[in-house]
């Protein structure tokens, strides 16, 4: 009886239902543009979830995540272009190389605290962009890499928007489940302890620096895989896709979704991808609205409405209406 009850527990079934709905949904979408936006949502969700591990869960703010995304994209594209290896191998290579770069940068960088780490990762992002831009013999500089082969499975190339959506969704699901399991492991709890209080965590025997670097490398690896997905979807990449501004967007997703929350990261990634797309009509005003949106979201999320000047004014108005109404009632009595 007990077991039966557990089996039909909503908490267990809900994720399965969600996953089923997620896989059924693309069948209903026929608009190519919507499919395209959905593919981007999946790719950005992977980025947000991976950054969430280091910035959200462990509290180490990195503003260079787009650099790993770029390293992954370029690695995957270059391997596919020069050796003609199948996509899954390119994907793995992109993940491994990005993770290695993460390890290389993270080892010294994560000894830094707070603002220094932010500046360091910003600098790293810019450095990667400049290397991609100036190492023309390999990356073809500002011209970017073209004719990146599409992923092939059993001799069939993936080409329609829907197939790409299924592919990117599956990748997102794998990354999501892996990261979720990491969060629930001993390692994940260590990371949370580090965020709460580094000194206390160290006293409890957690090797703070090693755990941070490991988390950073894992996050970088998944970002690299997202980059590989992007490269083989767009079929064309250039250094401008991996600028620092994009790192900011990824970080905004993590902060907006709630530091440390994976569903939050996915939801915020969806929101911050769909809203700018919806604003495309407004063209010139798009970025202005986006900036205002960032500020409003940060303020709105962190400040109770009643304490803002506008909220106070509204509360006063409500109070006055209430008093007026009460005096009206008083008159009738």
């Amino acid at each position, binding site marked *: 009886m007990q077991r039966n009850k557990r089996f039909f527990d909503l908490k267990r079934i809900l994720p399965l239902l969600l996953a089923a709905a997620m896989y059924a949904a693309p069948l209903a979408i026929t608009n190519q543009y919507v499919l395209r936006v959905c593919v981007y949502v999946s790719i950005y969700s992977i980025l947000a979830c991976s950054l969430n591990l280091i910035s959200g869960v462990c509290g180490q703010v990195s503003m260079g995540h787009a650099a790993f995304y770029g390293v992954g994209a370029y690695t995957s594209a270059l391997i596919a272009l020069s050796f003609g290896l199948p996509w899954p191998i390119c994907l793995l290579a992109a993940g491994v190389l990005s993770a290695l770069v993460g390890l290389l940068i993270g080892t010294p960088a994560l000894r830094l605290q707070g603002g220094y780490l932010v500046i360091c990762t910003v600098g790293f992002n*810019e450095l990667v962009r400049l290397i991609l831009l100036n190492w023309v013999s390999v990356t073809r500089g500002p011209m970017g890499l073209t004719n990146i082969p599409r992923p092939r499975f059993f001799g069939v190339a993936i080409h329609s928007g829907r197939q790409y959506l299924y592919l990117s969704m599956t990748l997102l699901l794998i990354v999501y489940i892996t990261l979720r399991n990491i969060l629930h492991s001993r390692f994940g709890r260590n990371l949370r302890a580090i965020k709460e209080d580094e000194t206390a965590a160290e006293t409890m025997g957690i090797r703070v620096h090693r755990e941070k670097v490991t988390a950073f490398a894992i996050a970088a690896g998944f970002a690299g895989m997202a980059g590989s997905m992007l490269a083989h979807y767009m079929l064309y990449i250039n250094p401008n896709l991996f600028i*620092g501004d994009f790192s900011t967007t990824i970080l905004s997703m993590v902060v907006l979704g709630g530091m440390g929350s994976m569903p939050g990261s996915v939801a915020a990634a969806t929101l911050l991808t769909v809203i700018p797309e919806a604003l495309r009509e407004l063209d010139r005003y798009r970025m202005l609205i986006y900036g205002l949106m960032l500020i409003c979201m940060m303020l709105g999320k962190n400040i109770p409405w009643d304490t803002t000047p506008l909220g106070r004014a509204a509360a006063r108005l409500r109070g006055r209406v209430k008093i007026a109404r009460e005096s009206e009632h008083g008159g009738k009595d």
Partner: protein
Amino acid sequence: MSSFLFYTVNGLVLGSTYALTSIGYSMVYGILELVNFTHSTVYMVGAYLFYILAVVAGLPMWAAFLLAVFMTGLIGVLYERLTLRPLRVRHQPKFAMLICTIGTSIVLQNIFFLTMGSETHQYPSLFEGHYLRVGGFNITAVQLVIIVATAVLLLAFTLFINHTRVGMAMQACAQDGEAAGLMGISVDNIVSLTFFIGSAMAAVAGVMGCMSYRSVDISIGTAIGTKTFASTVLGGIGVFYGGVVGGLVIGLTEVYTAAYLGSNYRNIPAFLILILILFLKPNGLFGKKTLKKV
């Protein structure tokens, strides 16, 4: 040899603008422990306001300059008041403030993009055609003015910080905001003042930088952003004269790299210096080691 001297003067001019801008970063980080991403955009705002006042509105240069610097300072106070203070007084996490500064930077940049367009404008300059001839090469008068003005401003700023009550209150806030508040210093006002001074200095740097390049466009803020970060960190964040030395070093290396290795590489040394200094000596050349209290 004379070309080396020529590059050195150019580097000093560039470094002066970095130095003035880095003071704003340094002060804000000292008091709020926040990397202020709006600051480099404020540099652009200052330069543009001067352009609008002097060229579009046709005010005399000195009036346009003073007004532009003052207005930029007010913009600094305003965005702190609207977007950062509500988060600060509620002790919200730094990430939220960080993203707010990025949002503000996007908003400011787009306001100027929408009103002034994205094209490059020709910038007014002082003493056109006047130059000093030293050992076979020319130093333009405006370059001399920039170097001298920077030195005077920095001297005035040092005196202000060390020898006035308000300046000492700022130092107290940087050391320990809470304790300073308990001693009767209005931390909110000091923070406002910090943003005012920082933004005004960035405006001065913006106007002077654009005068020496003779052009202004929307992207100048982003262009100097990471380089002024680099100079701030090189000198030690929170240490004012450190930022000045850092700015000069970064300016000189940039010009030397552009001259001797090719202008494609001019942006790279700043980032290399930044990353190296962070790895080897994160507190910067002049920074004090901070002890973390448990």
